[in-house]
C-alpha cells in the first residue's frame, strides 16, 4: 500500500512554507506601517495561514498545525468582523508568525519538547486573548442594558471556561466545554475547533506523534474514517454507511456521524447568524480572488521546474555551442570556396538559433529582483527593533531580472550588508538628531542592468565608515603597513572593511557580529563572479555596490593573442580597443608603471605578457594593441599583440587546484578542442597593482 515519504513532503512543505511566511510577513509589515488592514488583506492573511495549517497537518507536523490553527482562529475573527484590527495587532501577529517559524524549525528537527511547546502556545494564546477580551468589552458597551447584563455573564463564563480549557492546555475537556462559550464565540469554536480542526488539538493531547487519527477514527466510527463524502446519492449512505448524503441540511437533522456532528447537536439558532456571516465571507473570498497577490501572476500558467533540470538544459546548449564552433573551425580548412561560403552561411543561421535557444533558457532562469527584495522588510524591521533605530527601507528595480542560480548565493551577503549598514552605518536616534538629520534613517536597495552586468546597490544615510579607525585597526592587525596606509586613497581604505577580522564597532552586537562577515561577503560575491565595492562619506553614509555577471553559464568573448598564447576576454568587460600612439603613454612613479592618457583620462596599463610570464611579440606599447576594460569601478588597459575572432564561450569552472590562478576566471573548450583560459579583469588589476607595490 502506498505510503507517503514524509521527509520528501516535509521538504516540499518547508519550501512552500518559506514562500508563504514571506507573504504573511510582508502583509503584516505593511499593516504595521499603515496601521490598517483592509478586508482583502485580512482574507489573504487568513488563507495563507490556513494553507500552512492544512499542509503542515498533511506532513504530520501536528504541533505546528495546532499553533497555526490558533493564529488562523484569531484571523478568522478578524475577517468575520468579530475583532476590529488594531495597530498593535500587526506587531503581535508578526511575533506570532515568528513563533510559528520557530516551532516549525524545532518540530522539523525533532527537538520540540512538549512542555516548551505548551508554554509557547499558552503565551501566544494569552496575548491573542487580550485582544479578544478588549473587543468584547467594547461590544458590550454598545449593547442594550438588559442584553448587556446577560452578555457580561456569558463573557465571564467564557473567561472561566477558557481558563479551565486552556491552562490545562487542551485537555480532553476542551471540545466538550465549548458549548458553554456562549453565543458570541460558541459557533466558531464548534465549527473550527471541535469539528474540522478539532482533531489537531486532540491529537496533540491524546497522541503525541499527532498522526494516525484516521486509524483511530476508523476504529471509533466508520463514518469518520472515510475522510471524504459525496454531495449526492443518498442511497450509498444506506448501502455502505459511508456518510454520503443528498443535502447537508438533512444530514444535520439526521445527525449522521460526520465530522461536524457535535455542532449539529447544539442549538441551531446559535449557528444561524454564524452561517450567514460565513456566507458573506464566501462572497468576499470570491471577490478577493487570491491569497498570494505578490505571486499571483507567476502562479497562473506556470510550472515549477527543478533548477538542476534547467542547468542540465543549459549545459546541453553549452555543448551545442562548442559543437558549433568546432564545425566553424572545420570550415576554415575547406579548400572549395563555394562549399565553404555556403556552409558558413548555414552555420551563421545555426548560430542565430543557438543564441535564441540560449536566450530562451536563460529567460527561464531569470526571476525579478522583487523576489530578493521582498525578503528584506522583515529583516529590517526586526533588526531596527532590536537596535531601537528608525529605518525607512526603499527598493528600486523590482522588475530587473536576475539569474535564479545567483539568488541563493546573493541573499546571505545582501543580508549581511544590510544588517551591517543598520548596525554600524545608521546612527542611533539621538546621534542622528545631534547631527541634524531626521530621526529615521534611510536604507535603499536598488538593482539595474547595465553593460551586460547586474548592479545592486545598498545605500544608507548613516554616519559612514570611520576610515581613520578602520585604517588604524588594519595596521594593528598587520593587514597593512603604515607607509602603505599613507598612500591609500579613500576608497581603498574603505575597502579594508572586507579584510578578515576587521571590526571597528565599539560594541560588538548580535546583529552583525564580531567582524566576521564582510570578508565572507566579499568571497561569496566573488564566487558568483562578481565584485563588491564600497564608497563612504563620513557623516553622510555609505554605498555598497555589487556588480555581478548576468549569467553564470555562457559568455561572449574576444580571442586575444599574447606572444604565442591565446586568451579569452569577456566582451562585457571591454570598453574600447585602440592602437596607442607613443605620446599617449606616460611613465609614472618608478618608471615601471605606465599609464594610457585617453581623452584626459589616465588609465593604468597592464602588460599581459608580464602578468602571465610570456615572451611577447611586441615590447613597445605603440607596436601592439591596448584594450580598455572595466575592472570593478576602474578602467585598465591591457596590452596584447593581436585581437582575434569574437565568439560565444561556455564557461567551465577551473579545477580547485587552479582556483588561485591570478587573472584567470575560468576556462572553456575551443572549437578545435583545446582549452582556452578566460581572463578575469577584476583579478588582474589586483594582481598587477600588488606587483607594482
Amino acid at each position, binding site marked *: 500500500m502506498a505510503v*507517503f515519504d514524509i521527509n520528501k513532503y516535509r521538504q516540499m512543505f518547508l519550501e512552500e512554507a518559506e514562500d508563504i511566511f514571506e507573504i504573511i510577513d510582508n502583509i503584516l509589515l505593511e499593516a504595521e506601517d499603515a496601521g490598517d488592514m483592509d478586508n482583502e488583506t485580512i482574507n489573504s492573511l487568513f488563507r495563507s495561514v490556513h*494553507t500552512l495549517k492544512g499542509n503542515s497537518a498533511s506532513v504530520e507536523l501536528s504541533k505546528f498545525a495546532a499553533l497555526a490553527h490558533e493564529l488562523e482562529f484569531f484571523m478568522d475573527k478578524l475577517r468575520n468582523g468579530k475583532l476590529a484590527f488594531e495597530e498593535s495587532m500587526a506587531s503581535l501577529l508578526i511575533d506570532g508568525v515568528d513563533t510559528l517559524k520557530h516551532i516549525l524549525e524545532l518540530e522539523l528537527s525533532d527537538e520540540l519538547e512538549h512542555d516548551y511547546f505548551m508554554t509557547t502556545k499558552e503565551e501566544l494564546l494569552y496575548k491573542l486573548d487580550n485582544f479578544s477580551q478588549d473587543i468584547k468589552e467594547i461590544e458590550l458597551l454598545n449593547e442594550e442594558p438588559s442584553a448587556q447584563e446577560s452578555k457580561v455573564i456569558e463573557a465571564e463564563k467564557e473567561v472561566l471556561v477558557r481558563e479551565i480549557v486552556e491552562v490545562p492546555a487542551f485537555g480532553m475537556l476542551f471540545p466538550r466545554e465549548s458549548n458553554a462559550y456562549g453565543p458570541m464565540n460558541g459557533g466558531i469554536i464548534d465549527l473550527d475547533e471541535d469539528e474540522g480542526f478539532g482533531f489537531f488539538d486532540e491529537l496533540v493531547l491524546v497522541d503525541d506523534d499527532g498522526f494516525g487519527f484516521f486509524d483511530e477514527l476508523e476504529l471509533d466510527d466508520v463514518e469518520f474514517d472515510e475522510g*471524504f*463524502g459525496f*454531495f449526492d446519492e443518498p442511497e450509498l449512505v444506506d448501502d455502505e454507511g459511508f456518510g454520503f448524503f443528498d*443535502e447537508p441540511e438533512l444530514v444535520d437533522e439526521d445527525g449522521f456521524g460526520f465530522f461536524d456532528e457535535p455542532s449539529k447537536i447544539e442549538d441551531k439558532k446559535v449557528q444561524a447568524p454564524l452561517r450567514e456571516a460565513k*456566507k458573506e465571507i464566501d462572497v468576499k473570498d470570491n471577490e478577493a480572488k*487570491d491569497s498570494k497577490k505578490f505571486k499571483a501572476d507567476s502562479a497562473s500558467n506556470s510550472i515549477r521546474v527543478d533548477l538542476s533540470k534547467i542547468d542540465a538544459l543549459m549545459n546541453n546548449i553549452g555543448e551545442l555551442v562548442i559543437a558549433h564552433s568546432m564545425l566553424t573551425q572545420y570550415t576554415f580548412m575547406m579548400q572549395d570556396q563555394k562549399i565553404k561560403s555556403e556552409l558558413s552561411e548555414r552555420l551563421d543561421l545555426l548560430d542565430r538559433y543557438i543564441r535564441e535557444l540560449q536566450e530562451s533558457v536563460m529567460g527561464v532562469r531569470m526571476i525579478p529582483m522583487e523576489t530578493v527584495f521582498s525578503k528584506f522588510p522583515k529583516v529590517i524591521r526586526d533588526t531596527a527593533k532590536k537596535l531601537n533605530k528608525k529605518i525607512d527601507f526603499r527598493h528600486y528595480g523590482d522588475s530587473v531580472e536576475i539569474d535564479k542560480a545567483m539568488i541563493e548565493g546573493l541573499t546571505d551577503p545582501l543580508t549581511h550588508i544590510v544588517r551591517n549598514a543598520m548596525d554600524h552605518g545608521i546612527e542611533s536616534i539621538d546621534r542622528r538628531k545631534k547631527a541634524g538629520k531626521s530621526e529615521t534613517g534611510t536604507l535603499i536597495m536598488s538593482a539595474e542592468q547595465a553593460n551586460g552586468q547586474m548592479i545592486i546597490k545598498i545605500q544608507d544615510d548613516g554616519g559612514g565608515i570611520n576610515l581613520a579607525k578602520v585604517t588604524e585597526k588594519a595596521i594593528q592587525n598587520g593587514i597593512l603597513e603604515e607607509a602603505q596606509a599613507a598612500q591609500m586613497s579613500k576608497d581603498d581604505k574603505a575597502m579594508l572593511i572586507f579584510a578578515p577580522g576587521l571590526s571597528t564597532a565599539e560594541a560588538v552586537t548580535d546583529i552583525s557580529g564580531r567582524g566576521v562577515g564582510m570578508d565572507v561577503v566579499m568571497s561569496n560575491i566573488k564566487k558568483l563572479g562578481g565584485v563588491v565595492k564600497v564608497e563612504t562619506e563620513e557623516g553622510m553614509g555609505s554605498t555598497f555596490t555589487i556588480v555581478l555577471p548576468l549569467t553564470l553559464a555562457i559568455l561572449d568573448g574576444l580571442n586575444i593573442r599574447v606572444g604565442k598564447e591565446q586568451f579569452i576576454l569577456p566582451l562585457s568587460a571591454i570598453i574600447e580597443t585602440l592602437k596607442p600612439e607613443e605620446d599617449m603613454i606616460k611613465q609614472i612613479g618608478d618608471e615601471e608603471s605606465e599609464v594610457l592618457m585617453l581623452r584626459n583620462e589616465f588609465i593604468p596599463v597592464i602588460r599581459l605578457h608580464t602578468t602571465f610570464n610570456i615572451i611577447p611579440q611586441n615590447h613597445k606599447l605603440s607596436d601592439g594593441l591596448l584594450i580598455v576594460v572595466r575592472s570593478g569601478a576602474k578602467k585598465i588597459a591591457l596590452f596584447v599583440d593581436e585581437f582575434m575572432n569574437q565568439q560565444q564561450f561556455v564557461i567551465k569552472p577551473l579545477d580547485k587546484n587552479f582556483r588561485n590562478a591570478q587573472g584567470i576566471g575560468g576556462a572553456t573548450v575551443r572549437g578545435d578542442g583545446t582549452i582556452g583560459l578566460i581572463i578575469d579583469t577584476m583579478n588582474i588589476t589586483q594582481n598587477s597593482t600588488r606587483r607594482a607595490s
Partner: protein
Amino acid sequence: MPKILIVDDSNMLRDMVKYALNEGGYPDVTEAVDGVDGLAKAKATVFDLIVSDINMPNMNGFELIAELRKMPTYAKTPILTLTTEKNDDMKAKGKEVGATGWIVKPFVPEQLLKAVGIVLSR
C-alpha cells in the same frame, strides 16, 4: 484508463495526490496549479475525474467547479474537492457549485483511493 486532473496550488499536495493515485493504479494524472490553469487544461483534454483544492489563487476551487459544470463535457464528470474545512458552508457551497464530494486534508492514500474508486465506478 481514467484520466485524472489534480488542481492545487501547493506543489506538495499535488505531488501527494499524484503519488497516491499513481500507486493506486491511476497513472494518467495531470497537474494544474490553480483554477485558471485547471480550467485551461480541462478544456484541452477530457478528464474522467477532477480533484481540486478549494483555497487557491487566481481562481478558487468553487469558481473552477462552477465553470466546469457550465461545459457540457463536464456536466456529469465527478469532481472531488480537497479541503481542510468540512463545515456546513463548505458543503453547501460545494453542493451549490456542483461538486461530487470532498476529501479531507490531511488524507492517507487509502482514503483518497477509496473515494476515487467509488466515484469512478459509478
